[in-house]
């Protein structure tokens, strides 16, 4: 086929290289990100199911309805019931208030239980991962229960009325992260042993879970039907827990990582698109004479169109396939960076990423290359005789619009995120608009002031002004590339900083709660002796919420909401704690406290956490009655707050101003960092002060930290790929005006100009372009970053003064060096040779 032959010759002639590689890069970027996103997504669904030990769970204060079990059995849904409660355990003289979880033999439905025969095992070779639960009569227990009860593996201990054998050390349970062990060491027992132990009595505080998972043969539809049915069956006691909720902490980090990947991928596509548009523009210019020749030989416009269309399609097909292959390779590379926290048998991706990649190639050609070549068939054959005759290319506004539409379609289809699409497009509009307005202004200023400067400057700045249109196109290309690279770098850096800050090496990983006044000094000494530091001590009062608006809470509400059944931690402060945000009402300051509202009715103002307010149906002005050790006081809700759980410092649902709770018996809490080698401190503490509650977050924090580290590594690699795209755009933009520049330089040399003058002119021209582009890029980037941080990454807006410095200087240097390197030919080769080769 002639078109293929022409394509191959064109490739050999070097005119197609830039188009081809831009295309390949666009496809490769999209494919690699899409593949990675889909595979990780699929893995994460499995992974997050593991955090729940199920695909779905119902948490309840009552055992699962037997009807659910029957229906599940009929529908082929796998189920497991669990019950968690606190229970005293005994071994001889020793006793400990343990956190017991009874599970059915089918537990866990997803994920694995890690167990060992060696207490405090950390070495993977002695830890066994099983999808199994303890046999009846056996217990799997937390390592630290052994020293607490002074027992060995294989010994027997009493739980309630039953006696059981400790057969395994429990290292990790899949759903362990979702409920912090509040009552000391964990014990896993079999569901069938519940009647033997007889610990659950009417009125006992038990947290039940009904775990469900799709069977292996289910494509998800059966499970979906079942969960829909179940949704209608739930009562006020029941709450559905999805895998996402089970790991909200990690999900947030991974979600941001995923969003960044998407952003980087989108930026890569846009960059490759710009490179493609510039390269196509350049290619079309080089084809004008050729088409005129064809037409002088009698080739019809239709045939010309056909020939180019065939060539573009063939190029698109080959480029897309190459892009798919390279994209696959790159996704493997990215995967290897984040390998450790992904399951080994990562699910294969479906067809979608491949289709996305291939379609990107075609769409890019339709949006960027075809419009640039559109006018070619209309080229007049007379151009073979008269150089001044040239067909007008497709209106640049139309081309611009087509390019923007293509970018918008690509961005949206690819990211499925309107904010991201809008942010990048608006950033682009700002950069593009500014390029035209300020670009012209800058060029004009340059020309005016250039007159007063030396010959190099005068010539260079006059040149830029004379070539206004290509100069502006180049400037837009450079500034687009620089802006996008800036956006990516800033977002990446701020994300990583945010995570690092959250997860500093010594971030608190244990909470100590319920430390009585008389225990405080002892606990402090114990911590000091271990050379550990606390994040400061907070006072609090333990009290029950007994009445809402003078009435007892109704039974349904009481059963469905834990906080009405237990003692709550009430604390006081004058300043709004860090990370807390007032949602409704007003925070107190000294003036308001003396105001008439609270004083006149003799009520204490209280600020409550917004979720609890919503769940209990409380609003501003509602009155609450608290009972603290039999003493009763009333409060009025003056504000609701949101809390920040990321910073690992104590948070309180109920906060009072100073001066209201001080008279009640108080307890203390703190958070502290306990390194793994000092973990036994917890045992010592619990043995000495059995009523102190220890909340252990170390395992979950370790898990988050390893994930964050690897996501960060993935982001770094992605950044490199996108930098490659940026360089390609620069190349495309520089090559745009090169033949004209070389011709002029050759003529100047023929006229006797020095090498210094010619290179100097090129240097000034390119670095001025780069400087202006960098300045405009800083403007566009600042704008887009503000939007992205606000809408996509939940970050506060910050100025980036360095952009305004680095942008122009890096732009000037980069573009200058690239331009001069490219145009060195003009001074190293004899002028005649240069002219002949054009």
């Amino acid at each position, binding site marked *: 086929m002639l078109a293929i032959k022409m394509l191959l010759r064109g490739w050999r002639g070097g005119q197609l290289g830039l188009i081809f590689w831009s295309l390949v890069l666009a496809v490769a970027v999209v494919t690699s990100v899409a593949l990675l996103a889909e595979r990780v997504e699929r893995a994460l669904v499995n992974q997050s199911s593991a955090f729940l030990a199920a695909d779905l769970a119902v948490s309840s204060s009552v055992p699962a309805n037997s009807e659910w079990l029957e229906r599940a059995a009929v529908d082929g849904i796998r189920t497991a019931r669990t019950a968690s409660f606190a229970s005293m355990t005994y071994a001889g003289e020793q006793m400990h208030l343990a956190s017991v979880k009874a599970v059915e033999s089918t537990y866990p439905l997803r994920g694995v239980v890690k167990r060992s025969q060696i207490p405090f095992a950390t070495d993977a070779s002695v830890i066994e991962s099983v999808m199994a639960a303890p046999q009846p009569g056996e217990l799997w227990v937390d390592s630290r229960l052994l020293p607490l009860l002074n027992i060995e593996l294989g010994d027997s201990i009493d739980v309630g009325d039953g006696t059981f054998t400790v057969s395994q050390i429990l290292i990790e349970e899949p759903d362990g992260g979702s409920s912090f062990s509040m009552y000391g060491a964990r014990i896993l027992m079999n569901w069938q042993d519940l009647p033997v132990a007889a610990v659950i009595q009417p009125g006992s505080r038990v947290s039940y879970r009904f775990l469900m998972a799709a069977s292996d043969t289910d494509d998800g539809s059966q499970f979906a039907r079942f969960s829909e049915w179940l949704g209608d069956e739930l009562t006020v006691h029941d709450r559905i827990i999805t895998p996402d909720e089970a790991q909200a902490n990690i999900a947030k980090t991974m979600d941001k990582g995923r969003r960044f990947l998407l952003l980087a991928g989108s930026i890569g596509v846009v960059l490759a698109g710009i490179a493609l548009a510039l390269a196509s523009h350049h290619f079309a210019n080089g084809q004008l004479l050729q088409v005129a*020749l064809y037409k002088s030989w009698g080739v019809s416009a239709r045939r010309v169109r056909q020939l180019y269309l065939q060539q573009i399609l063939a190029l698109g097909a080959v480029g897309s396939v190459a892009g798919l292959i390279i994209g696959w390779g790159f996704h493997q590379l990215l995967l290897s960076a984040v390998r450790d926290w992904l399951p080994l048998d990562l699910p294969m991706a479906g067809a979608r990423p491949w289709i996305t990649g291939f379609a990107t190639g075609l769409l890019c050609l339709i949006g960027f290359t075809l419009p640039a070549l559109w006018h070619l068939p209309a080229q007049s054959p007379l151009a073979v005789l008269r150089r001044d005759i040239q067909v007008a290319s497709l209106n640049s506004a139309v081309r611009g619009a087509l390019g923007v539409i293509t970018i918008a379609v690509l961005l949206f289809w690819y990211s499925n995120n309107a904010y991201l699409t809008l942010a990048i497009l608006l950033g682009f509009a700002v950069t593009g608009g500014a390029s035209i307005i300020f670009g012209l202004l800058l060029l004009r200023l340059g020309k005016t002031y250039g007159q007063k400067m030396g010959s190099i400057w005068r010539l260079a700045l006059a040149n830029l002004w004379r070539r206004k249109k290509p100069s502006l196109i180049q400037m837009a290309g450079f500034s687009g590339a620089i802006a996008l690279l800036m956006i990516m770098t800033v977002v990446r850096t701020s994300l990583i900083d945010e995570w690092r800050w959250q997860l500093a090496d010594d971030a608190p990983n244990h909470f100590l709660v319920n430390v009585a006044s008389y225990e405080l000094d002892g606990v402090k000494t114990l911590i000091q002796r271990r050379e550990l530091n606390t994040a400061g001590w907070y006072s609090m009062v333990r009290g029950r919420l007994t009445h809402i608006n003078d009435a007892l809470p109704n039974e349904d509400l009481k059963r469905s909401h834990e906080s009405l059944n237990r003692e709550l931690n009430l604390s006081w402060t004058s300043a709004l704690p860090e990370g807390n945000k007032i949602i409704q009402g007003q925070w107190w300051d000294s003036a308001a406290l003396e105001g008439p509202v609270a004083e006149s009715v003799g009520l204490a103002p209280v600020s409550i956490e917004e979720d609890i307010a919503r769940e209990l149906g409380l609003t501003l002005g509602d009155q609450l009655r608290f009972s603290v050790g039999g003493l009763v006081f009333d409060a009025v809700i003056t504000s609701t707050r949101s809390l920040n759980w990321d910073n690992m410092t104590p948070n309180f649902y109920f906060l009072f101003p100073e001066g209201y709770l001080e008279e009640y018996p108080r307890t203390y809490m703190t958070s502290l960092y306990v390194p793994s080698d000092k973990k036994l401190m917890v045992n010592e503490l619990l043995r000495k002060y059995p009523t102190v509650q220890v909340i252990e977050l170390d395992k979950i924090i370790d898990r988050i930290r390893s994930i964050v580290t690897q996501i960060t590594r993935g982001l770094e690699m992605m950044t490199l790929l996108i930098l490659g795209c940026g360089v390609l755009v620069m190349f495309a933009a520089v090559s745009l005006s090169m033949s004209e520049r070389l011709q002029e330089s050759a003529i100047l040399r023929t006229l006797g100009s020095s090498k210094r003058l010619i290179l100097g002119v090129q240097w000034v021209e390119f670095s001025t372009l780069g400087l202006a582009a960098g300045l405009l890029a800083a403007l566009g980037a600042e704008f887009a970053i503000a939007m992205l941080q606000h809408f996509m990454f939940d970050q506060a807006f910050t100025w980036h003064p360095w952009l305004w410095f680095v942008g122009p200087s890096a732009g000037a240097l980069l573009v200058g060096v690239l331009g001069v390197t490219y145009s060195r030919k003009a001074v190293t080769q004899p002028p005649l040779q240069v002219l002949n080769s054009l």
Partner: protein
Amino acid sequence: MIDVSNISKQVSTSEGTLCILDQINLSVKAGETLAIIGSSGSGKSTLLGILAGLDTPSSGTVMIDGQDITAMDEEGRAAVRAGHVGFVFQSFHLLPGLTALENVALPLELQGVSDALKTAEHYLQRVGLAARVTHYPRQLSGGEQQRVALARAFACRPTILFADEPTGNLDTGTGEKINDLLFALNEEEGTTLVLVTHEKNLAARCQRTLELQAGRQIALTNGSQH
């Protein structure tokens, strides 16, 4: 072969209408050679463009092989060009990315000729460049480049060859050789040749000479030698 009656060409400029060609009448028989001469800006190239169907006159008609190409649209003229016309240009117009052989073969391939490369090789041989078929234009001298262009023009077996200042970019010696080759090939192939030149001695080798001055036909004479 070519019949031209009353063709004029006007273009509008900012200073009013400019007459580039004024009432040209001309007839060229098959196999005949015609030189169009005149000083710069006399309208030579414009006339050549119109004769070859690359451009249209403001008025008048041009018949090629009995077909009125001035009544045709661009596609129609393209079809006529495809069947009859070949070109040689002052600046050669070889495609820099193609070898000499590919440059010659390209128009044949576009016409769908099956053994394009073989034909091209044959014509390159005839212009004395058999040894340089794989060379790119930048590796060839000006004279060699124009010889490739001649091979390309004749390889399509046109009935009419239009040459626009074929030796205008070459030194005298090389130009002479190219002219010899042009006329030799023309005679062998029996092609009608219309060439534009400002060199009197080249014009003199044609059977007839049309002289233009400011767009007017001031003389149509028989050449001094043939």
